[in-house]
């Protein structure tokens, strides 16, 4: 039996140290770290500005500048490697009220969206949002698709949005894109996409009790029989229960 140390060799820090400025203060950190890990390495216990640590939650929005570069960058701290001379600060939260809506009262059109978010009509197509988006989405195109009443396109363009708020920070029209997109996608999911008939059909069958008797038998079978059944269905065969003798197996 192998012992505990085998598939990984010693975890050594291979990279050099680089200097990053966290809210203005310099720290030396290993160059292969992400911005998030660099902060921890420097001694920050993260509460804000951290979540999934995997690029899914948008909690770790970070703005930074690089040495001798005028550009302001926005990225996810958990997905971005540190660079020497990086000046950074996190924006763990972009203030925005989420309006309340009842999907059942709405129709899938851009008027529904403008009703809650009239500010989208102020979009000047500057595309600053797109330049900010760490997911490389095109929020501007999505907003404009809403203006064209093409909600499907807006939903597709915004599907990978992780609500980091980077776009909203840069937007001169003060749009809160991620809330807008959430409404768009729900409207598309609810009203534009067709309903899955086969799912509804199966729900009806189950609710009508069509599987109950067979289930009663199945869950009572001994393990050996279940295993045999499984081998057969796994080969693609339909399930055939042994003779129905309800009540016999318990």
């Amino acid at each position, binding site marked *: 039996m192998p012992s505990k140390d085998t598939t990984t060799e010693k975890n050594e820090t291979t990279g050099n140290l680089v200097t990053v400025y966290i809210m203005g203060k310099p720290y030396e950190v290993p160059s292969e770290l992400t911005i998030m890990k660099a902060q921890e390495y420097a001694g920050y216990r993260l509460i804000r500005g951290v979540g999934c640590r995997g690029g899914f939650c948008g909690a770790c929005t970070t703005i930074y500048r690089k040495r001798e570069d005028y550009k302001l960058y926005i990225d996810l701290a958990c997905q971005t490697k540190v660079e020497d001379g990086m000046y950074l600060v996190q924006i763990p939260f972009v203030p925005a009220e989420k309006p309340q809506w009842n999907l059942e009262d709405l129709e899938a059109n851009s008027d529904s969206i403008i009703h809650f978010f009239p500010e989208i009509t102020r979009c000047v*197509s500057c595309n600053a949002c797109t330049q900010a988006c760490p997911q490389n989405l095109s929020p501007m195109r999505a907003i404009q698709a809403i203006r064209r*009443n093409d909600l499907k396109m807006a939903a597709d363009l915004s599907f990978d949005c992780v609500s980091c708020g980077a776009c909203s920070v840069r937007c001169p029209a003060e749009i809160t894109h991620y809330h807008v997109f959430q409404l768009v996608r729900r409207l598309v999911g609810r009203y534009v996409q067709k309903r899955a008939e086969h799912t509804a059909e199966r729900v009806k069958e189950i609710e009508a009790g069509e599987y109950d008797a067979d289930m009663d038998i199945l869950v009572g079978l001994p393990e050996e029989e279940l295993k045999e059944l499984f081998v057969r269905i796994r080969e693609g065969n339909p399930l055939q229960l042994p003779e129905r003798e309800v009540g016999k197996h318990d």
Partner: protein
Amino acid sequence: MLYYPGCSLRNSYPEFEKSALETCTRLGIDLAEIPEWNCCGVNFSLSDNIMRHLGAVRTLISAQEMPDLSGDEKVVALCSMCYNVMKRVNLTLKEDAEALENVNLFIDDEVDYRANLEVIHFLQLLRDDIGFDHLSDCVTVPLKGLKIAPYYGCALIRPESIAIDAPENPSIMEEFIRSVGADPVDYPYKTECCGNYHTVMRKEIVELRSKVIVDSAKLAGADLVVSTCPLCTYNLRLGVRALEEKTPILFFSQILALSLGVNPHLSPEREKNVRELLEGMKSYAK
């Protein structure tokens, strides 16, 4: 012909676009919709700052990059507000090289705009490319005896630099009305402003102005009023309501559709009214 629909047509007034597109098919006009067009930027329509009009520029770039263009195409707009904004932006870019350069530098995620497109309104297309004479030849159901008041509002004729006709006393809509067989009604308020965006915050201003406009058209004997603008239409209808009147306010494309015998896409609440008018008109024609 490159086609710019604009937001209002897609959202609030599909009948405007649908009726216009049907007439194009009948007249053999080939419209190619600009892909992924942006909102023209009407909210900032009064701003001279070109940076407020990047939407229009992006649309023009998108048009410019459409395949198989000769290079000096026209972009046609149906909504007169869209026309107004797009035309003014385009004009600025054509005339002001510095503005063009600035915008092109700013929009660094797209190719440069070369400023060689032309923006026109659909009425210009009818007048200059089809010809009103030819149009009247195509009419199959002349709207004989129908008294129609043209409503110009502001967007087609102000400022002068982008006007599609003489700003003080335009006649293009009258000519259009004649070409479909109807009688244009002259009335003093045809170029009066409807109140425009006051409709959002100060409805009473709009109601008052629209009431005056519609009343004046009625007094001059109009059966209905035609407009070229979704917002004007919305506002005039407020005026009609305030007058407790039934006078239909239609888009010009809808009466064109009626005269060509294609679907005018009348909304249900107007359908009856207009049909009644037409019934009366036909008996008159006999």
